[in-house]
């Protein structure tokens, strides 16, 4: 007969999904309630949170300036309008497509 897994082990496996927000509302509440009653698990959750924080800080967080973002979005728009071909659904749609192509030249 297989012995049931100790509760601590079960909740330990839920640390990452908890930090990721991947638990359901009920599981989330249950996890937090258990963490409050178990200092060992509480310490593990905190250690894990600190580790994630540390790793996040080691990833470069480069931010685009407003002007660069606008320029990048303009280039993205140009790419989309140049590379995608729309089939006109009638005369007015055909005119709309031509007008958009003219604007994006």
């Amino acid at each position, binding site marked *: 007969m297989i012995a049931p897994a100790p509760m601590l082990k079960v909740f330990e496996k839920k640390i990452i999904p908890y930090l990721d927000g991947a638990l359901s509302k009920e599981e989330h509440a249950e996890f937090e309630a258990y963490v409050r009653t178990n200092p060992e698990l509480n310490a593990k959750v905190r250690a894990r949170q600190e580790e994630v924080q540390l790793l996040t800080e080691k990833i*470069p967080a480069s931010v685009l300036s407003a002007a660069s973002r606008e320029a990048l979005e303009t280039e993205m728009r140009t790419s*989309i309008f140049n*590379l995608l071909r729309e089939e006109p659904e009638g005369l007015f749609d055909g005119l709309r497509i031509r007008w958009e192509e003219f604007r994006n030249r």
Partner: protein
Amino acid sequence: MKRNDLFQLVAPLSEKLYRFAYSLIPDDLQAEQLVIDSLNAYLIKEQKQIVKRDFDPRNKKEAQQLRRFYFKGLLKYLSDIGIRRSGQFTDHLKDMGPSGHAEFYRLEAKIRIVISLRYDARFSVEEIAEILAIPRYEVIEKLHNGRFLLLGHHQPEAPL
């Protein structure tokens, strides 16, 4: 789907895509170019599917789901192209990483991608495996290696 609808979906992703590109190539212009080239490659390859797709821009939920779908698709192309480009100047990356992030740029490109997707973009292990088209165990292995090299110790990735 109309071209303008696609643009409205992907434009808000520009910042995130750039940030991800910069984690592969730490140069403003090269990172921006990488985003554009990946978008072009994606559009050329997936054109038929994009144009055929029925989409109602008034449906917010559908728009959200579709934005995430395109985000993942673009990240896939960005990773593929980015790995090849970052391989062209590996030595430069090791020496010239921006201050405070040299450690990160010393990692191999695929590990940087996995670490960025997991801890910056907050994708699950399963989603990363789907984006990079690699098995789940390989994602976990790269996370292990990345964590070890960045933090100096191993800690297992608990199953999600």
